[in-house]
């Protein structure tokens, strides 16, 4: 028999009820309170809609208007087509101008919305197009197609259209998009090997879709003692570059600035070539030209937008003239080169402007139209207007001073929309996956809101692409991508609070164990006493 302190029954009862009350309080109030106060705030995310995004199917629809000119259809077929009078009279002096005028006149007749294409079918015998030209694509969204199914006797309208299908498909692939363009826009989301090398080179060259770009034009003058250069860059930008940038306003914001750098030298020594009596830069050494210059170029510290640099280098008098040679040791007509995703450099020789016995420094005015011609074509490449190889029989009218043809812009808008939709959906799905995986990241309300608005904008963009409204689709895709980027790169989503489970136990056990042990033991004691009591009662009854 062990000696135990003898408590009277009421005291024992009070002790028991106190222990039970404390245990009840701990379990009923303490545990939920602890759970609530240590839980991280996670705002609700539309997980179901995000799950749908993973299996996104894109459907792109192009609106095509086909206009049959007189003489292409037989009278019966003509009756089936809703007719409208379009008369075009021309008195053209030369063949080539005639075509441009015709294109311009036709463009003013029809209203074309962004993304749509108008194809005019002209009779086989028409003199508008030269003999070997089958299709002429103008500067706006129109194309002239020489019909080769002039009169399929007895055939109805659907058969005529079906016969024209392959040619129209070719036209549309040139003017809107083809399989290669779409896969190029999705290169980083696809398995390697799906896109051709040319389209991969194009996608490496052009900048990725970004809400804004900064363009810097720099004049490098290594020899101010001899050359006093004047360049009217503001007027040149107004005349040549701003029209293009204004047209690209739906795609991105642009900020343009210019600077002049003195005593800036190229990093390579050009070699003197006696046969050409000029200094030459070979194609291999061009790669090392950019780095020493880049350190001095500078950029706007406030924004994180990609920067395009266009440099105009005027060689010093000791190394003039300076020409660039390509791989085959031939002179390059433009005397310029560009680097993908960086910009371009043009070498402008001024040795012809003065003789040997002039008073130095010489005032030289730079011919900005020549310079801007080169920069404009480089800018087009950087922004994503690829050098489209036209299929044979096609003639694509060059954009000239306007910078970019409307159908070229449409091409870019198609690929940009697709790229934006793909990138935004990838961001959202990977963000949702990340937030799922790490259970103790705090999801603030603003992130949930950004995600929800990104998902809505994405679905709207996909719907607009299906409906064929390119401008609206691009707008929605831009909204989607900016919302998804803001959500993904929110500074609060840092998963530094990585607490592995053993660390969690190590924190909680010293706090809760000393408290829980007496409670549990007293509960056990009470339970055992109750059982004993019941056993005694049963024994007494029996």
């Amino acid at each position, binding site marked *: 028999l062990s000696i135990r302190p003898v408590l009277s029954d009421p005291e024992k009862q009070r002790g028991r009820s106190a222990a039970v009350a404390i245990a009840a309080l701990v379990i009923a109030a303490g545990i939920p309170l602890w759970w609530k106060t240590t839980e991280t705030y996670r705002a609700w995310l539309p997980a179901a809609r995000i799950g749908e995004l993973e299996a996104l199917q894109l459907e792109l629809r192009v609106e095509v208007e086909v206009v049959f000119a007189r003489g292409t259809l037989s009278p019966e077929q003509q009756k089936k087509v809703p007719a409208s009078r379009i008369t075009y009279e021309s008195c053209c002096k030369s063949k080539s101008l005639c075509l441009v005028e015709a294109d311009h006149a036709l463009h003013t007749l029809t209203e074309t919305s962004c993304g749509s294409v108008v194809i005019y079918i002209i009779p086989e015998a028409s003199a508008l197009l030269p003999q070997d030209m089958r299709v002429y694509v103008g500067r706006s969204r129109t194309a002239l197609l020489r019909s080769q199914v002039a009169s399929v006797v007895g055939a109805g309208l659907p058969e005529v259209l079906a016969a024209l299908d392959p040619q129209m498909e070719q036209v549309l692939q040139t003017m809107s998009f083809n399989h290669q363009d779409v896969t190029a826009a999705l290169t980083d989301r696809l398995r390697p090997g799906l896109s051709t090398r040319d389209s991969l080179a194009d996608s490496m060259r052009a900048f990725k879709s970004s809400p804004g770009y900064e363009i810097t034009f720099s004049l490098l003058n290594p020899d101010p003692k001899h050359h006093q250069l004047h360049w009217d860059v503001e007027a040149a930008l107004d005349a040549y570059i701003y029209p293009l940038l204004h047209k690209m306003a739906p795609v991105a914001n642009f900020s343009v600035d210019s600077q002049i750098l003195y005593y800036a030298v190229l990093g390579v020594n050009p070699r003197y070539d006696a046969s050409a009596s000029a200094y030459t830069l070979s194609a291999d050494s061009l790669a090392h030209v950019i780095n020493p210059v880049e350190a001095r170029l500078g950029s706007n510290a*406030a924004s994180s937008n990609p920067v395009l640099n266009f440099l105009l280098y005027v060689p010093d008098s000791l190394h003039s003239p300076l020409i660039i040679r390509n791989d085959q040791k031939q002179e390059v007509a433009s005397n310029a080169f560009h680097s993908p995703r960086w910009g371009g450099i043009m070498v402008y020789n001024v040795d012809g402007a003065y003789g040997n016995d002039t008073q130095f420094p010489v005032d030289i005015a730079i011919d900005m139209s020549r310079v801007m011609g080169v920069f404009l074509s480089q800018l087009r490449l950087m922004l994503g207007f690829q050098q489209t190889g036209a*299929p044979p029989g096609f003639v694509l009218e060059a954009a000239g001073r306007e910078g970019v043809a409307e159908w070229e812009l449409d091409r870019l808008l198609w690929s940009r929309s697709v790229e934006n939709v793909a990138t935004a959906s990838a961001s959202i799905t990977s963000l949702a996956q*990340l937030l799922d995986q790490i259970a103790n990241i705090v999801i603030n309300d603003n992130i949930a809101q950004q995600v929800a608005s990104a998902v809505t904008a994405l679905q709207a963009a996909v719907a607009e692409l299906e409906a064929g409204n390119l401008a609206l689709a691009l707008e929605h895709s831009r909204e989607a991508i900016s919302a998804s980027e803001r959500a993904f790169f929110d500074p609060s989503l840092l998963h530094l609070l990585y607490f592995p489970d053993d660390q969690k136990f190590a924190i909680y056990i010293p706090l809760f164990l000393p408290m829980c042990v007496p409670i549990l033991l007293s509960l056990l004691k009470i339970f055992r006493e109750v059982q004993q009591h019941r056993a005694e009662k049963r024994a007494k009854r029996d």
Partner: protein
Amino acid sequence: MTYVSLLSPVVCVCVSHFVLIGRTSAFLLLHQARAERFFRSDHTNNWAVLVCTSRFWFNYRHVANTLSVYRSVKRLGIPDSHIVLMLADDMACNHRNPKPATVFSHKNMELNVYGDDVEVDYRGYEVTVENFLRVLTGRLPPSTPRSKRLLSDDHSNILIYLTGHGGNGFLKFQDSEEISNVELADAFEQMWQKRRYNELLFIIDTCQGASMYERFYSPNLMALASSQVGEDSLSHQPDLAIGVHLMDRYTFYLLEFLEDIHPASQANMNDLFKVCPKSQCVSTPGHRTDLFQRDPGSVLITDFFGSVRKVEITMETINLTVPGIPLERFGGEPHTETALAYVDQLPVAQIIHQKPKQKDWHPPDGFILGLWTLILLVFFRTYGIKHLKHIF
């Protein structure tokens, strides 16, 4: 008018089947040659993130390590705008430095790696695990300037160099916190999700460095470490005049190797793996290439340490010279030139004829009101409320 709608992108038409005219075939060949040169590697720009995770004078060698790698990377072409340098930067101007404003990497003070054009982006107490992860993942507050950001894209090759004190699975940051290999692997995965790199080379020079790359699981990562798990990385040589060890062995021999590399060099990664064998380094350097898609023998050192740009000759130009047509201004009337003058640095006129400025009257603020209330309360409590009627 008939409407024909074309649903979904159609199969592309192969151009190669058509007969080509002479001029266009030459163009196609040139195009192919250009494409060939592009595809030796996939990157168009290079970035470097160099981190020294130690502070205090006795960790001189870690700062010298990082600065030496910084110098090599700059020499091989990566500009400052593409380098994120994180240093505690307390060596050059340390009170214990017998030669202030210098950090030497070779004994007998042969090579000053601090120089006069070091651009440190994160210095002092800004070198934290949080800032490092923020730089990698891009989750920086909007007020962060461009020089402190890693603005890489999907065609960037990034070099990441870490040095300091480490252990099995962690790296110590400035004696107060640590980063684990799991966190680092997760950060790289986040970079991959957003395609913030094309290929990434990770070099770590700490004790048990190989443990830091054990947990990587994202594609296109190559990692080198100065020692295996259970081994210590040792320092190279002390300088008796300065009084501390100047560099770590692995980085010392890495630097010797890099000094022979110039921007046009064709040395590849297999040579880099041979740097600092056990006889020189005492520890066993390790590397990991299973996540890397290209064969290391085809990867040039300059793909990561230098910045060799891809260059294309501009073949097409736009003919803008239309004679006789003057340049039209776009967007309105030309702005007139206004004569500009400097603002007075010292407004003498204002100083000499100074009148006291009329200050606007503000009602008394809370403090004055409270003070007066207190005084009044004390007064009325002491002397009784009957005085109140004399006031009001």
